[in-house]
């Protein structure tokens, strides 16, 4: 079954440095790091203390609120350090990998098991961490029953890894994962693929496929949900990243938690943008310096894409959910009369002496400058042009800022995740931090309403 979803509102941000479709094996990283902050709102209870040896797939910590929910190590090795922040919060768990990788054997899983067994298996093997839920954009509550599960197989974000390429040849794993997931919901597993793609996700059984087209955020899972079956009060949907289905699938088929992932190294600062095969939590440095960036260059390295990713140092680590590393120049310099001169080398949705409308196909080399100072909300109508959901973006942002729970609920807070507001944040004339505002709003609702 296939349905077409076409959106008009949005903005394709075309940047220089798209990854070339050639995969290299990254230099095997010595140390790996798992950061509990990647799992928003989870309070970790540490199992593996400093100095213990773990196998790949062995539990590192579990969720304080649900002991069954384990978080596992991507590699086998020795835990050398547990970095702690204020109030003994766990910041990172560092693992030095063994030369020879050993895996915990969870056994081949019977794909025809019932929902309870599936849940227990996914929770125990650490695969549950890949399943997120909306409302609140957090790891799914294992006791909830989603009305549907959504997977986006089309990456429309700037410099995103091409999922058709990274998932090629993984049909068996993808099929196993969706077969199992489809038993956890009364509805169906909705999968989106690009209009003209030959995605391995397009021909899976037990799914509803949607062909999406249009500018970014057509590939965001939030857009898919809103167009297929918007979330109402009291309902839950789950979302899984397409690349994480592969890990779930492989675990089900072989019993091994294989954290391998194909990651795009992209961005205008990278000499030779391309794909790497690496593992969750590996050192960024193993990828960015080889034909990548200069050692002392003034660049920003982002684990994730340029709209939603996290800033990391060159000594940082790939985060748990990302499949792209973006490197763009820092913009910490002044620009003479930058606020009134005609601008040809930056993207803008207006035409106020900005000329990106002349040449919509051009690729840009954007840096991290904010292009202006933070201000109160002034202009109206700009967000709506890039926001395809049936929600009033400015009003919901303001509701979050003044913490009116009733209004946030009425305006559609259950349906959104911070990433849905990445484009409105990009075009914001007042340079307001939209994603942060939404995240804090969601956290408040989670705390107050739950």
């Amino acid at each position, binding site marked *: 079954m296939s349905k077409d979803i076409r959106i008009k509102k949005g903005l394709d941000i075309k940047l220089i440095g798209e990854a070339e479709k050639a995969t290299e094996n990254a230099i095997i990283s010595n140390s790996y790091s798992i950061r509990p902050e990647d799992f928003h709102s989870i309070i970790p209870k540490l199992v593996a203390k400093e100095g213990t040896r773990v196998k790949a797939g062995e539990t590192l910590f579990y969720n304080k609120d649900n002991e069954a929910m384990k978080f596992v190590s991507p590699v086998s090795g020795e835990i050398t350090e547990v970095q702690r922040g204020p109030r003994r919060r766990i910041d990172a768990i560092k693992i030095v990998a063994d030369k020879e990788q050993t895996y915990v054997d969870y056994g081949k899983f019977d794909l025809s098991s019932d929902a309870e067994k599936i849940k227990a298996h996914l929770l125990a093997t650490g695969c549950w961490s890949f399943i997120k839920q909306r409302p609140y954009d957090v790891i799914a509550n294992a006791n909830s029953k989603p009305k549907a599960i959504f997977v986006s197989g089309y990456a429309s974000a700037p410099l995103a890894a091409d999922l058709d390429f990274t998932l090629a040849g993984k049909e068996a794993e993808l099929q196993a994962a969706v077969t199992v997931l489809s038993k956890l919901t009364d509805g169906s597993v909705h999968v989106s693929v690009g209009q003209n793609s030959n995605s391995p996700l397009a021909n899976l059984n037990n799914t509803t496929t949607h062909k999406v087209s249009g500018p970014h955020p057509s590939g965001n899972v939030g857009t898919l949900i809103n167009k297929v079956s918007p979330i109402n009060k009291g309902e839950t949907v789950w979302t899984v990243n397409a690349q994480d289905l592969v890990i779930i699938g492989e675990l089900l088929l072989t019993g091994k938690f294989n954290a391998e992932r194909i990651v795009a190294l992209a961005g205008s600062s990278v000499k030779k943008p391309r794909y790497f095969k690496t593992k969750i939590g590996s050192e960024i440095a193993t990828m960015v310096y080889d034909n990548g960036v200069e050692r002392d260059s003034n660049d920003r390295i982002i684990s994730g894409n340029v709209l939603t990713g996290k800033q990391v140092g060159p000594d940082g680590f790939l985060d748990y959910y990302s499949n792209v590393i973006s490197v763009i120049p820092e913009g910490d310099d002044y*620009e003479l009369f930058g606020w009134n001169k005609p601008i040809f080398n930056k993207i803008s*949705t*207006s035409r*106020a002496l900005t000329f990106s409308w002349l040449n919509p196909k051009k690729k840009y080399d954007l840096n991290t*400058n904010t*292009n202006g100072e933070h*201000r109160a909300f002034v*202009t109206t109508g700009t967000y709506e042009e890039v926001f395809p959901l049936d929600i009033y973006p400015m009003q919901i942002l303001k509701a979050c800022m003044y913490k009116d729970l009733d209004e946030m609920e009425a305006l559609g807070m259950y349906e959104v995740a911070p990433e849905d507001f990445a484009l409105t944040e990009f075009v914001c004339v007042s340079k307001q931090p939209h994603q942060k505002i939404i995240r804090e709003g969601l956290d408040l609702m989670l705390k107050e309403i739950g």
Partner: protein
Amino acid sequence: MGLKSNLHNFKEKNKDKKWIPAFNAIHTFLYLPNETTHGGTHIKAADDLKRTMNTVIMALVPCLIFGMFNAGYQHYLAQGLIESADGFLGASFWTWDNFVIGLWKVLPLVIISYGVGLAVEFVFAIIKGHEVEEGYLVTGMLVPLIVPVDIPLWMLAVAVIFGVVIGKEVFGGTGMNILNPALTIRAFLFFAYPTWMSGDKVWVHGAVERAGTPDAISGETILGSLAQNNGTLGYDIWDMFWGIIPGSVGETSKFLIIIGALFLIFTKVGSWRIIISTLIGALSMGLIFNGVINAGWVGESSKFFGLMSVPFWQHLIIGSILFGAVYMATDPVTASQTNKGKWIYGFLIGFISIMIRVFNPAYPEGVFLAILLMNVFAPTIDHYVIKANVKRRMKRVKVKTA
């Protein structure tokens, strides 16, 4: 070490000082700041508030320059020293003499408006410890364009202080105000000094001081004359369109306002929805009044006859409705913020403007009152527009449970 690094070092050295927002305001006029993104998106679009405001100012500059020429032209014309210009490029209009008079009269208005207004902004920014916001850049340009040319400077200064403090700063500054600050200033002038701001003397430079002397000249506007059933003072439609008529400094040339409007719409800075719907609103009210006249309900003896019988489309080129629709009603902070709301908001502005114009002959220009009124109602309009979205969401739940 260039200017750039000197300024940077100065900023870093003094970043804890209380007056640093004042320095930053000037610094950021020279240089786009070196601020980088943290958290959230790592890249940002090219536009900032300064650029947006600057675009509006650029759209206003032709009106300002035209206003200078017109001030001088009207001054000489009223004294009978020059012939009336024929059309927009008339020989007696674009002359150096006209410009010099206009410059001497209008430039002080601009300087006072910006000087006083920005001083207030700087003081509030320093007191509250935030950056100087750009809102006044446009307001400061609008104010000289919507006052009579002979307004005393002290009066303007008082009004600007009132308008910025009461109209904007008490609400929390740019982005928080309910009323359009430029119109608040205009309204203050109108209600505090009514003898100055209306009547038939103030619209041409020199008319006031000559009143009652043998050299007396008329300083009346077409609108004022129409309101008293005296016809259009001999100006024809093209005069009104090109703008070579008496009026507030910058709002007479409909031609240049339309150019400005096209520029604002093209740059996506001004809302075409508001501009178009305001014009539709004005035309509809005009049509209704024309209908009333045609039906014979209001006779020639009525004091409303003069303005009611103006063909409906001519309302757009008389008075300052066009200026109001393009530059005032579109202020994003005080207008409706939803796209549907903008249609309603604009339509009502146009509609009410013409209504006030016809029914209030003592002061026939109703645009600024209409916009201020709709500023107050804009949040209400938005409320109902958003309610429709909320209802749609509620309905989804009901369909589900039913």
